[in-house]
């Protein structure tokens, strides 16, 4: 066989990501790489020249080799992930090209999820920008260990060595801070081609490899030694009675015929009888190989289950975990909604229970936030409807990454990387739907918030505002208000002492039923007597009842007098009116004291959310 052909049959494959903005000259750089390496076909060169002539350019616009869709060509920007392929005799390269603007973080994450290495552009005239920091942070988050930083446009600075060294120093410091292992800088001009494929006389002070040389030589394969075996079952093959094979791709580690395995989540044990690969039977298989595994003992495995090695550390099986999420949805993330979670080959309904924080990618700061918007990154707690085997992304990316799919639109609306798993005993509830199950489905902890205070103290306004806010956050709520209840359920009750007590008792019971339904119940009642409030408290479990005292002084309430009741009471026309003709007993130890004359509504809401642990 001719030697040139033989070389092409021995090369390996490197997938890399390019990030940086149009202005940094990214497309031009890749165009230059292809052009100087002699990889641009003649007919494409002809198209380039025609374009150059049409637009009256002095040099062909090499960026055109990369930009794909018509609209983008016209606008001169890349908007999505585009893939480009080229190969030298050493390596085949798959380039995922992603846009650099801040609003495209999601695209960058998508590109990075397919890559082993990132190539990051920095405009030498601008130096390290917040964007550079953001790109490096995303690269780190996705677990890419190798980064090439192209310090571009050096031609515009007369190939100034000092500027380059300064930038290099900053980049290295940043890399260290983020924990990136392998970071290389290159002094480059994509327009003139300096140090892309060929060295340049202009940068005789640079002694390192050219970009292409480095890309051809960098070692990116990680060893499978010590990596635990993972095999998510993808497809069950039953061509005839005597053969049942489990098809799938080994996502980590290795396995041999005779190995003892566990099936997850069932934990049943078994043994490998046979491994069938792309060229027939083989004694073992390792990460990356698509094989069919036949087991000794007859069993009924199905898609979504995972084979692991018995002798290795156990794989976590859990129905809840914490994860970094990248949000793609047009609608913001709101905790509480159900999605379909896809991890490995399993699909299971899941709820985002809580948004722990949003990650401000520029500064890597974790900020509290009620929601995530498109392109935001954040840490969440997820609850799954059944326990599945999974890993931390950092340990094993293939079994630690997932997507969330909107069950109505079918769109992929988030990508996730598991950061922490909680091993939890899975309790099977047999045939009885109880409070725990109802609230699990809603992704919330049911509670009763009992607002007490004088008429006009602002209880109802506050309870209304809180319900509004909780609803926006995706919680299931119900507001019981004195006036509403008296129009229906308690229509038969008056304002004598007995009736007022019965009024509170009934509302207490209704709150309890709603609590049992898994709701967050807001109750806004004057409820002036300690003993009655105590009775209601005792209906609930500890930690479920929150007494909120709206401590607005009577002078303020009377001045507000929204319904003109104080006036009537002063005139003696309303007997038993709390604060005037009937006492109000303030709580001794309420869970929260608020007032509406010194504190703003926003401050009050903040306190309420924090006491509910929802902020």
């Amino acid at each position, binding site marked *: 066989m*001719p030697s*040139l*052909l033989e070389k*092409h*049959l*021995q*090369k*390996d*494959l490197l997938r890399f990501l390019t990030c940086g903005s149009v202005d940094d000259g990214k497309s031009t750089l890749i165009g230059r790489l292809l052009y100087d390496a*002699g990889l*641009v*076909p*003649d*007919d*494409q060169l002809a198209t380039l020249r025609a374009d150059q002539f049409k637009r009256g350019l002095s040099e062909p616009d090499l960026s055109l080799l990369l*930009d*794909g*869709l*018509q609209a983008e*060509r016209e606008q001169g920007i890349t*908007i*999505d992930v*585009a*893939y*480009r*392929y080229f*190969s030298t005799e050493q*390596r*085949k390269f*798959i380039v995922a090209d992603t846009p650099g603007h801040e609003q495209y973080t*999601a*695209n960058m994450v*998508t590109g990075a*999820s*397919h890559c082993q290495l990132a190539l990051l552009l920095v405009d030498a005239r601008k130096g390290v920008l917040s964007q550079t920091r953001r790109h490096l942070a995303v690269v780190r988050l996705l677990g890419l260990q190798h980064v090439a930083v192209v310090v571009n446009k050096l031609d515009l600075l007369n190939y100034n060595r000092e500027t380059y060294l300064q930038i290099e120093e900053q980049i290295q410091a940043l890399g260290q801070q983020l924990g990136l292992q392998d970071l290389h800088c290159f002094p480059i001009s994509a327009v003139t081609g300096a140090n892309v494929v060929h060295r340049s006389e202009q940068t005789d002070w640079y002694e390192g490899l050219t970009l292409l040389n480095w890309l051809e030589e960098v070692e990116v394969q990680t060893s499978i030694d010590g990596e635990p075996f993972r095999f998510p079952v*993808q*497809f069950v*093959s039953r*061509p005839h009675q005597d*053969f049942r*094979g489990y*098809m799938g*791709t080994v996502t980590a580690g290795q396995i041999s015929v005779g190995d003892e395995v566990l099936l997850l989540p069932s934990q049943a044990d078994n043994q490998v009888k046979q491994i*069938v690969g*792309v060229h027939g039977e083989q004694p073992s298989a390792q990460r*990356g*190989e*698509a094989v069919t595994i036949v087991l000794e003992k007859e069993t009924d495995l199905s*898609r979504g289950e995972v084979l692991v090695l018995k002798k290795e550390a156990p794989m976590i099986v859990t129905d809840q975990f914490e994860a970094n999420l990248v949000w793609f949805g047009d609608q913001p993330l709101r905790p509480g909604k159900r999605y379909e979670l*896809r*991890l490995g*080959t399993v699909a299971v309904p899941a709820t985002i229970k809580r948004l722990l924080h949003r990650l401000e990618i520029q500064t890597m700061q974790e900020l509290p936030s009620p929601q995530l918007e498109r392109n935001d990154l954040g840490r969440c707690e997820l609850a799954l409807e059944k326990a599945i085997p999974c890993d931390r992304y950092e340990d094993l990316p*293939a079994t630690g*990454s997932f*997507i969330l*799919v909107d069950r109505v639109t*079918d*769109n*992929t609306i988030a*990508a996730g990387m598991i950061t922490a798993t909680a091993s939890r005993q899975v309790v099977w509830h047999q045939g009885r739907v109880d409070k725990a199950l109802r609230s699990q489905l809603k992704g919330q902890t049911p509670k009763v918030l009992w607002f007490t205070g004088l008429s006009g103290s602002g209880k109802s306004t506050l309870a209304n505002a809180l319900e509004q806010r909780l609803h926006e956050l995706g919680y299931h709520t119900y507001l019981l208000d004195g006036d509403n209840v008296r129009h229906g359920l308690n229509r038969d009750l008056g304002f004598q002492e007995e009736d007022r007590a019965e009024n509170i008792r009934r509302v207490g019971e209704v709150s309890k039923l709603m609590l049992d339904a898994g709701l967050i119940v807001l109750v806004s009642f004057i409820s002036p007597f300690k003993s009655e409030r105590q009775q209601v408290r005792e209906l609930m479990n500890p930690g479920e009842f929150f007494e909120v005292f709206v401590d607005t002084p009577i002078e303020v309430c009377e001045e507000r007098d929204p319904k003109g009741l104080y006036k009537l009471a002063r005139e003696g026309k309303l007997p038993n009116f709390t604060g005037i003709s009937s006492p109000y007993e303030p709580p001794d130890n309420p869970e929260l004291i608020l007032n509406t004359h010194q504190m703003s509504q926003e401050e009050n809401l903040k306190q309420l959310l924090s006491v509910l642990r929802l902020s």
Partner: protein
Amino acid sequence: MMSEHLKQLEAESIYIFREAAAQFERPVLLYSIGKDSSVLLHLALKAFAPGKLPFPLLHVDTTWKFKEMIQFRDQTAERLGLELLVHTNQEGLDQGIGPFSHGSRVHTDVMKTQALRQALDKGQYDGIFGGARRDEEGSRAKERVFSFRNTHHQWDPKGQRPELWQLYNGRLQPGESMRIFPLSNWTELDVWLYILQEQIPVVPLYFAKERPVVERQGTWLMVDDERMPLEPGERPQNRMIRFRTLGCYPLTGGIDSTAQSVEELLEEMLQSRSSERQGRLIDQDQAGSMEKKKREGYF
């Protein structure tokens, strides 16, 4: 000895095949007889061995394919014991639509794009395997491996589902479908290297041979049957040519070559510097023409 990069591509394609077979109820493999289809079929057989293919093959026949292609198609189906479905747009045929009488644009639209839609609607397929590769043309570079089509078989390049890691979202509503491209990350070079390594049979038209040709728009068109209109006094000449891609013979240009085996062809390719679809007249109708066709439902 198997090349590391081909091994990775092969495993990736097999994964995609299995994933689609598990996620869709009525998959079908669009078989277009060319080298990419040969590789696609080879990978599909590997993906499900020792079982049978869990889906049929579908060929959309414009009635203008090279005779050798049809022969190869039927032999392949018979040799491998495959279920092969052939569909032709009968209306188009009745109207006498063809590339010579109506031009490549109308012919492709009626006999390929519309015919494909008819066949897909008829079979109610939800997952359709195709052999397209991202390196073939600019607009394909951004297409997903699982590429969503609405109920009218249309592609929306701006509304594609994000595709991360190896997690393919195949959820569909009734009437919607997914085109699945297991060869997305393969290049023409990879395809030929793999054909060499795996000894995969391909249509002999890919290898140089003396063939009767006429010159049209700077390329050699083979006179495959009597439907080829000749200029007054024009006679086909015999030339050593081969084809880089195969389609309808009046729309597929041949190139001068002496390569008579896969090795020779690869040698020639490694030295040549012309991209693959150049011989296809279909892409050169208008700027951005492939993107237009794809939006309308062309593969």
